[in-house]
């Protein structure tokens, strides 16, 4: 059993399967005992613990409202968790000051379900925004003020997602699939060690969704980027991940290598 599971303290014991030789690999992200509630007693996360190893692709699955998105947001403190610790690349960020937190976040590219591009500005400017964590200020606000090297870097990221010919197109005039690819290019601009993707294909049609997942797969494997993604699609989770975590009613109920699982094993964790 992987060391990463030892700290699990949830009420319901998760199903754990011996990992695929990742026990000694460095953990890029370690979440321990994370709890989060909204409003009066609406407990969304009930002591969630999990880890993601270097260069590993992990799928977090679960039904609507199970706590997937909240877990990801709490892990990067986009939402402040009530309890729990988070180690990101060896730095404990759960109680870190804002400047430390910001520095740690620059190594993580976050891709959202609805891409969250800035509308009315070009795809190129949106990608340049990915560099804001490393170098803020007016030079990073728009391609109008950006240096030549920054523009070239952003264009190269667009090239990697196959959209360099759409660089000057307004973000709100791109299709859903194109927008998500620009969001991935923005994440790549961060030169991330890890990408966290919250249901990245949920709002796309099956073909565009497949393209985006293939793109994730190619980029993460080619460049050794760790990937943590959430999905509703069991088959997609099996196809694209090394390991699967299932979350149900705010608790991790499964943590196992993907090659040891079948779609039927995962379907029971919905509902």
């Amino acid at each position, binding site marked *: 059993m992987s060391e990463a599971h030892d700290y699990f303290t949830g009420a319901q014991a998760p199903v754990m399967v011996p990992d695929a030789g990742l026990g000694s690999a460095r953990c890029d992200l370690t979440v321990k005992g994370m709890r989060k509630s909204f409003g009066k007693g609406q407990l969304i996360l009930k002591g969630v613990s999990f880890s993601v190893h270097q260069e590993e692709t992990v799928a977090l699955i679960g039904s609507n409202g199970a706590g997937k998105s909240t877990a990801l947001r709490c892990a990067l403190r*986009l939402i402040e968790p009530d309890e729990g610790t988070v180690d990101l690349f060896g730095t404990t960020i759960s109680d870190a000051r804002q400047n430390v937190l910001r520095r740690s976040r620059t190594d993580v590219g*976050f891709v959202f379900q609805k891409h969250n591009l*800035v509308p*009315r500005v*070009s795809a190129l400017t949106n990608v340049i925004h990915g560099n804001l964590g490393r170098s803020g200020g007016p030079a990073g606000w728009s391609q109008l003020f950006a240096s030549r090297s920054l523009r070239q870097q952003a264009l190269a990221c667009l090239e990697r997602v196959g959209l360099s010919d759409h660089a000057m197109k*307004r973000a709100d005039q791109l299709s859903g699939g194109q927008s998500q690819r620009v969001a991935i290019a923005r994440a790549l601009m961060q030169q991330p060690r890890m990408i966290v993707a919250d249901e990245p294909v949920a709002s796309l049609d099956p073909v565009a969704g497949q393209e985006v997942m293939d793109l994730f797969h190619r980029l993460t494997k080619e460049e050794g980027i760790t990937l943590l993604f959430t999905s509703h699609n069991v088959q997609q989770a099996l196809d694209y991940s090394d390991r699967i975590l299932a979350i149900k009613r705010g608790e991790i109920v499964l943590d196992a290598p993907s090659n040891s699982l079948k779609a039927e094993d995962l379907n029971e964790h919905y509902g």
Partner: protein
Amino acid sequence: MPDRFERPGILQFIAYVLLAAFVIWSFQGAGWSFSALVSGGPAMADFLSRTWPPSMDRLPQLSSALVETFQMALVGTIIGIIVSLPLAILAAKGLTKQSFVSRIFYSGSRLLIALFRTVPDLVWALVFVITVGLGPFAGTLAIAVDTIGFCGRFFAESMEDVEKGPSEALTAAGASKVDTIFCAVIPAAMPSFVTTSLFALEKATRSSVVLGLVGAGGIGIELKVAMDFFDYQLAMTIILMIFVLVLLVERIGSIARNRILEGNTQ
């Protein structure tokens, strides 16, 4: 079958009655009189007959005053917009950090904007005539202050209303608050900024005419003198010139609004 209307409770009913009574009392307080309206008709016809034909005697001087009026409106609006932007950022809920100092800035900027907005521009003009003297500068300052109040409020509200997703994405990428505001919030609020700014210019153009009445420059003083000397033909010329100016500003504003909102890519 459900009732078409819910029967009001006793307190709700009393509130409706009191409201209706207050509205009726307000008509009385405002001196509303249909008889005075009817009897004023001939006087209005007499006034209009004495304004025709408009006098062209002082057209060059009036044109110069009209240009000055628009210049006051334009400069006052530009200064007002520039000052209102940082104030609006401080006054927008949830945009700055949640600290004691930022809460003081938040309350202070909201109070300032409310003060600038609620005191009428004519009062500001009177204040600035006393402080900087008669002339267009006093009018320009009055318009700037009024614009800060107008734009400050609407800029802040439009920034509060923008979709939070892009800001969250940039925060997740490690961007600072300032970068997030300039990269995600302001571009998303830009259509509203443009619309509000052009409305502010239209409003300022109308205001700049009235400000002249208290000596704050522009064509307003010409109108006051013409009315005081019963030179109604000259007054009509001035009214028509103001009408054309306001119409032109509104029309150009509308075209500019559409062009800018269609927008170039940045």
